[in-house]
């Protein structure tokens, strides 16, 4: 089952090569739909009470190198898998309706992108994770480079894409070295294994953790992107074709945050505690910088792009609060942000078709004769700014709650970010949909085909707002597992000023439990 979820998209992508050009896209849409069905099946069979991995597949892949093909589901990745499967379908369908040129390659790459992303979420072998993490980049290189748009100022799509590749691969190649070093140091001359569960049993010495931590962190922070490592984002976002950008921004950035939870926290707990504040500072800087940039930009893609920087900053802060609340909220927020940002980019595509521009200053009044589009966009906007009642509100609340318990000063600064979010989200909505309509802009409502893509997506946002427990209930146990190591390290440290005020943190009494029993804990 888990195998078919992973490989179905690619299989259909290859099938798509052998049908006439007009149908290539729809074959891949079919693949995405089948994948979504399979993913729902997995979610339905998911036992939210059990901790530890479910639906596992584990076969030797390269036994000489200790690499195994090992997949599994737990509370950490089950919703990210769902998110991937859920968002790819509308993105592919949206693209298929618009018939890009050279459709065979385009849809093959979109399909490969889905398989690679699912692989990164499902992999339970560190090296397999790195492999899929790197592989994600290949399809998006082609998609952004070959179907991207050149800018009038001379920055070609190829150059923008190249910049993105160099940035992201700097991180991920160092991560390859770091992953190998982790396994070899953990094996200590014994049987080499890259299995993440095995590696959790023998945590490395503090000295090795230090440099390995940063090699992993670099890869994940670039992917998000975090402040100072976001240099590739503006160019790549302006160049990318929008359906591909929707999934790229919604799902691929989450792989970075997920990597922290899956790999960094449990495997490098000492380094995590040691560098907690540095990462939090980066996260806060991302929140503030992203927000400020988002309300000064005039290109609608960049507004969405910088708002993602800010949102991912929130998620990182939640993870590095190293409290169950924060991490729970981060995981919920990953799903929320994915659900929100994908429709934003698709709506941007729809708006750009009507306005003939992506510049905020030249847009306006589109809501005039487009009530459905306006309603959809409004719901998405309100979710983006974490209006109470939306699942995003719950997510951010949890994150801030965790952050308050851990580092109260950071929580205040992060709270300011929420206010800024309201400003840039409403600005984007007002300037595009309201105001007087400039002459060339065409205020048309959604066609039924675009509506068929967007309305269900927005429906998911609304549904999750009513019932965020759907996610929280299933993630709780797994999140606790991931944090256990770091908390154990933390509690063994000499008391610092903030520890005294944490009655709640002390109640996590399983912190004294040895790492090995993590999987058995209920």
């Amino acid at each position, binding site marked *: 089952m888990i195998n078919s979820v992973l490989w179905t998209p690619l299989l259909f992508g290859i099938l798509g090569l052998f049908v006439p050009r007009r149908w290539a896209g729809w074959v891949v849409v079919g693949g995405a739909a089948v994948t979504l069905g399979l993913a729902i099946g997995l979610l339905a069979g998911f036992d939210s009470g059990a901790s530890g991995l479910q639906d596992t597949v584990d076969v*030797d*892949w*390269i*036994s*000489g*190198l200790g*690499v195994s093909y090992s997949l599994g589901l737990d509370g950490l990745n089950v919703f990210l898998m769902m998110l991937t499967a859920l968002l790819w379908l509308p993105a592919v369908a949206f693209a298929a309706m618009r018939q890009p040129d*050279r459709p065979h*390659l385009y849809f093959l790459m979109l399909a490969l992108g889905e398989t690679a992303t699912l692989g990164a979420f499902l992999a339970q072998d560190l*090296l397999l994770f790195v*492999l*899929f993490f*790197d*592989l994600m*980049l*290949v399809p998006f*290189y*082609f998609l952004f*480079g*070959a179907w991207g748009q050149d800018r009038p100022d001379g920055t070609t*799509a*190829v150059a923008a*894409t*190249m910049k993105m*590749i*160099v940035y992201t*691969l*700097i991180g991920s*190649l*160092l991560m*390859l*070295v770091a992953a*190998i*070093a982790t396994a*070899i140091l953990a094996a200590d001359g014994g049987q080499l294994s890259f299995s993440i569960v095995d590696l959790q049993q023998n945590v490395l010495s503090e000295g090795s953790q230090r440099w390995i931590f940063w090699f992993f962190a670099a890869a994940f922070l670039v992917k998000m992107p975090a402040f100072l490592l976001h240099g590739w984002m503006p160019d790549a976002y302006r160049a990318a074709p929008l359906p591909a950008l929707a999934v790229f921004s919604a799902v691929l950035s989450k792989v970075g945050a997920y990597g922290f939870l899956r790999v960094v926290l449990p495997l490098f707990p000492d380094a995590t505690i040691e560098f907690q504040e540095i990462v939090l500072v980066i996260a806060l800087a991302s929140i503030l910088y992203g927000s400020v940039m988002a309300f000064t930009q005039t290109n609608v893609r960049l507004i969405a792009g910088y708002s993602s920087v800010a949102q991912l900053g929130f998620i990182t802060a939640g993870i590095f609060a190293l409290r169950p609340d924060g991490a729970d909220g981060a995981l919920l927020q990953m799903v929320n942000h994915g659900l929100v940002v994908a429709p934003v980019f698709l709506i941007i595509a729809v708006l750009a078709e009507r306005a003939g521009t992506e510049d905020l200053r030249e847009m306006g009044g589109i809501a005039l004769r487009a009530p459905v589009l306006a309603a959809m966009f409004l719901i998405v906007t309100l979710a983006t700014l974490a209006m109470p009642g939306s699942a995003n509100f719950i997510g951010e609340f949890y994150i801030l709650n965790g952050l308050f318990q851990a580092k109260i000063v950071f929580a205040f600064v992060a709270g300011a970010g929420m206010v800024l979010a309201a400003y840039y989200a409403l600005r984007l909505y007002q300037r595009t949909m309201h105001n007087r309509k400039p002459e060339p802009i065409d205020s048309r409502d959604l066609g039924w085909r675009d509506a068929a893509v967007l309305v269900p997506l927005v429906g998911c946002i609304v549904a999750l707002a009513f019932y965020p427990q759907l996610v929280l209930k299933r993630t709780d146990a797994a999140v606790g597992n991931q944090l256990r190591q770091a908390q154990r390290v933390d509690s063994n440290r000499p008391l610092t000023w903030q520890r005294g005020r944490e009655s709640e943190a002390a109640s996590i009494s399983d912190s004294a439990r040895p790492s090995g029993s993590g999987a058995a804990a209920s």
Partner: protein
Amino acid sequence: MNFNAPDIDYAALSPVIALTGGICVVLLAGVFDRVRRAVPLLTLLTLGAAAGLFIWQWGERKDLVAGALRLDELAVAVALIAILAAAFCVLISVREPAVSQAGSGEYHVLLLGSVLGMTLLAQAQNLVSFFIAIETLSVPLYVLCATNLRRAESLESGLKYLIIGSMGSATLLYGLAFIYGGSGSTDFTGIAAGIGKEGVLGDPLVLVGIALAATGLAFKISIAPFHQWTPDVYQGAPTPVTAFMAVATKAAAFAVFVRFFDVALAPEAGDWDVALAVLATASIAVGNIGALGQDSLKRLLGYSGIAQAGYMLGGLVVASEAGINALVFYLAVYSLMNLAAFAVIVARERETSFGDEIRAVEGLGSERPLLAWPLTISMLALAGLPGTAGFIGKLYLIEALVDGDYTWLGVAIAVGTMISLAYYLRVVAAIWMRPAEDTAVTAEVPAVAGASPEADPIDADAGGRWYLVGPALLAAAATVFFGVIPQPLVEWAEHAGAALSQFLP
């Protein structure tokens, strides 16, 4: 007085005998008009026979010819790589202008002669056989580089290679003489015993010898800073010859590099590993940076080969079984990646007037997908992206390096790979992301297009010919196959390392 007839192991020598016999047959066949057309076929048959006999001998580990040669899995593995490269070269040489200009018989005999040298070199276990083999492989190559008689670049390339190659050989020979002087033995195992007592650092004679020999070998493998000839010679030589040279020479020279350092000098591994690590780093830096600004695909691959040689040298630095495994695995993968790329370059050289410039592959994606895919896969694999065998090869090498406490060299490989993306992906971008405007078939008037009058004729259908598309597709498919299912190739490489494990520290 008794006379002991020497014991000749014909079975183990059979591949070499087959190659030698094949050389005679091909040379004769080239003389007669009637059978001249069969020369490529006969060459392929010879190579096939030699490969078959080598595979038959797989698993044997024995000394031959009084210890001058040693047949083991390392030798067979590398010989098979060289034979594979030669077979590719024969296929992509079909209708190559150089072949008719030099004479089909001569061209193929030189190729086979070089292969013979390579198979001997892979087995060499004695300073004398080592040197003879390296000359046997080099001399035909000097000539092959110059076979495109009507192009000045080709002649220049041959001459340049001759002069620099001779320099390298002389340096090597000088070094070997020192080593013999210092250790009192020409045999690799004898050397290991001879210098074991005082160590390398205590014996200036041996130290100088090793430095000179390593320099000579570095010339052959084009390790920086002994690489200057590589881009020029690669660019000037007929492309099929370049392909053969890039792949097979490197494989054979690495085999003897491994045998020399991991057998003869294995006990002193702690003394020379840092020096080799520095050479490897220099190579990674020089190769990757040098490739950045190249517009000629052959020069680009030349520089990339320098960088890749640096990666592979890492497998030698750690002087461990895992290192040799990784090196052999990478050699095999490197061969497949490069052969795919060169086959495409040959096709484009013949059907466009742009020669080997990057412009020649612009718009290839929509024009000739069957050529575009192999070149794309080759570039992605050389860049070490997952899904291709190149990723597994890098993984293997880095794992061996980290295991041998050379993590920093692993990081150097990662950094080099990042730089390399800039030029590998430039080729991919040219293939898929630029429109095919006036390239290719439309540019049918070479004399006007600024090409020199001696330019080779354009064959507008070259991109569709089976003997070019077939090898390219095959090599690319193998690159992907071993990227997804690497286990068979990993096991194959493990045999090579196991063959030397008894000598390792």
